[in-house]
């Protein structure tokens, strides 16, 4: 049942993504109502699937991450009055659901942890934080693309379909400033859970060192935004650097130390 629901959500997200990207391959833009209704329907099916999941292991976490991303995509499209975020968030969410299905949706070994409030909060906040940072990354990428087109006086599809620079900048700021504390709190809850219920932290030294490095890079991106009042292109680049650090460190650790994770 969980797999079937994920497959339906995957199909709906995939269809919505295809319709959203259609103008880039010279097709007529799909009606706005349809590009909103499809991910909404996908999210409705997805939430039913997630409610039946135990959030332990890579597959369930990726599924949850995709769901958060779709919700943020829908919310930000309301803010931006356009479908631009879905140009990148759509394929990303679809890919994440696909990856979740490939890596299996059955919970990992420590099923009991899935009933612990600390653990559930840790997963929820970490996933929300990651989704917000992904949204900040998307807004920054869209900003840089639109900026390049405007500076180069090119008035093609990007100029037409992407939102104004100012709104992308606002979205980037909000997502970064909200995502960083959410992720930080998620990590702190993991530490609390480890100390309270798991008999200490079962993580390798490399994970701690690189985790701190990622946190510092992200913290720097937030600091220049909030304290130094960076905006526009420089802030977008800082935001991209922050999210790239998260991704690179995750992939590097995944390749060098497989199986050392609790939920991701």
């Amino acid at each position: 049942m969980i797999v079937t629901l994920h497959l339906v959500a995957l199909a709906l997200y995939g269809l919505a993504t295809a319709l959203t990207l259609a103008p880039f391959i010279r097709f007529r833009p799909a009606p706005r109502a349809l590009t909103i209704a499809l991910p909404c329907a996908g999210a409705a099916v997805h939430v039913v699937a997630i409610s039946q999941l135990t959030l332990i292991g890579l597959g369930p976490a990726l599924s949850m991450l995709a769901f958060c991303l779709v919700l943020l995509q829908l919310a930000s499209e309301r803010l931006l009055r356009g479908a631009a975020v879905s140009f990148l968030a759509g394929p990303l969410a679809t890919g994440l659901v696909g990856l979740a299905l490939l890596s299996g949706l059955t919970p990992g070994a420590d099923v009991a942890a899935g009933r612990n409030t600390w653990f559930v909060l840790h997963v929820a906040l970490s996933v929300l934080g990651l989704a917000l940072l992904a949204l900040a990354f998307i807004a920054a990428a869209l900003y840089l693309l639109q900026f390049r087109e405007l500076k180069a006086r090119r008035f093609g599809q990007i100029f037409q379909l992407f939102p104004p620079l100012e709104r992308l900048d606002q979205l980037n700021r909000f997502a970064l400033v909200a995502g960083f504390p959410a992720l930080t709190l998620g990590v702190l809850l993991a530490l609390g859970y480890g100390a309270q219920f798991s008999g200490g932290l079962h993580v390798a030294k490399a994970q701690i060192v690189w985790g701190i490095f990622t946190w510092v890079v992200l913290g720097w991106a937030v600091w220049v935004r909030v304290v130094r009042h960076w905006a526009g292109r420089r802030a977008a680049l800082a935001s991209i650097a922050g999210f790239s650090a998260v991704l690179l460190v995750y992939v590097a650790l995944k390749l060098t130390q497989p199986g050392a994770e609790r939920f991701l």
Partner: protein
Amino acid sequence: MGIKVVGVNHRTAPLDVRERFAHGAHEVPGALARVMAAGASGGVLLSTCNRTEFYLVADDEPALEAVWSLLGERLPTGPSAEAGAREYGYIARDRDAVRHLYRVSSGLDSMILGESQIQGQVREAWEASRAQAGPVLHRLFQTALHVGSRVRTETGLGMGTASAASAGVAVAGKIFGDLAGRSALILGAGDMAELAATCLGDQGVQITLVANRTQERARAIAERLGGRAVSLEEAWPHFATTDIALCSTAAPHAVVTWERVGAVIGARRGKPLCILDLAVPRDVDPAIAQLENVFLYDIDDLQTVAAQATARRRDEIPAAERIVEEETDLFWAWYGGLGVVPTIKELRARMDAVRAAELERALRQLDHLTPDDRAQVEQFSQVLLNKFLHQPTTALKKAAEEGHGYGLLEAVRRLFGMEPPE
């Protein structure tokens, strides 16, 4: 009585004539009252910079004559003024008049294809003429607004921006998002500068300064747009704070140079500046665009944006025309069916009265008939009347359903000597 539109537009009359025919809001009731006094039973006056059109429910004469006379008086051609007005104008009747208004409200008849301002102007005209519009025009204008909305939501006719000035607004919008509350300084005080500044003002941009070599002209525009008139030299320091700079001077060389504003723009600390250079030759040194936070667009760039929009809009014309035709059919079906039921009732009543009178006269001469025979004769007269009226009744109902009822109705009323419908 039928629906008529009589007037002039940007295709039939030059600007100076259209300016003379344009009616301010305060002139509308008086003008309509004159046309109504000439026999129109309903009227709406739509007057914009591109058209002055009287929508009437009237016979051809003399209401239309009243319109030509009214417009003719505004021409400076003395005794031949009336003929002059007619020369610039056009008349569309009935179904064509309905289609015309629907095309107007959807932007198909606009100078800039698909422009949306006309929708608001149609609404304003309807509201200003509401007391004189009458039920038919009331319905016509209500549906015209619906048609305009349908065309804009179901087709791409209103997509993009189709003039250089509005393209400038669109480009600025892609940088700043909502333009309301942004500040703009205007260099130059020509027509183009004024038009573009008005477009910005319509979006809520505050025109803070108008700089020109001739202070007098700058002052006139500044007063209209709510800004302050300054000399060009006084304008340079304001490049540090303004969001948009609109340049359209008649200078033969670049006036906004690196030397004059480079350092000033550098002090903006990354805050974006959108420069719209509408002048030919260009007012702004292209080197200024090298500054990271400066977005510089010249007239060619803006015309590219406008041309793209116009091309896209042209592709949407067939879809928009289909909607107009569909809605014209719907209105015409409603209009055609308006007086059919009361006319059929009146026709039957009249014929029945004739039948009853003739029957009574005949029976007076047929004293020898038994009561049964008299009843037979009466029944015969009823059946005969029903047979006679069956065809006209069904033809009228069918014509009403098909939207041709109004013309047939008039014919029936004329043939059977009935009063014209309300």
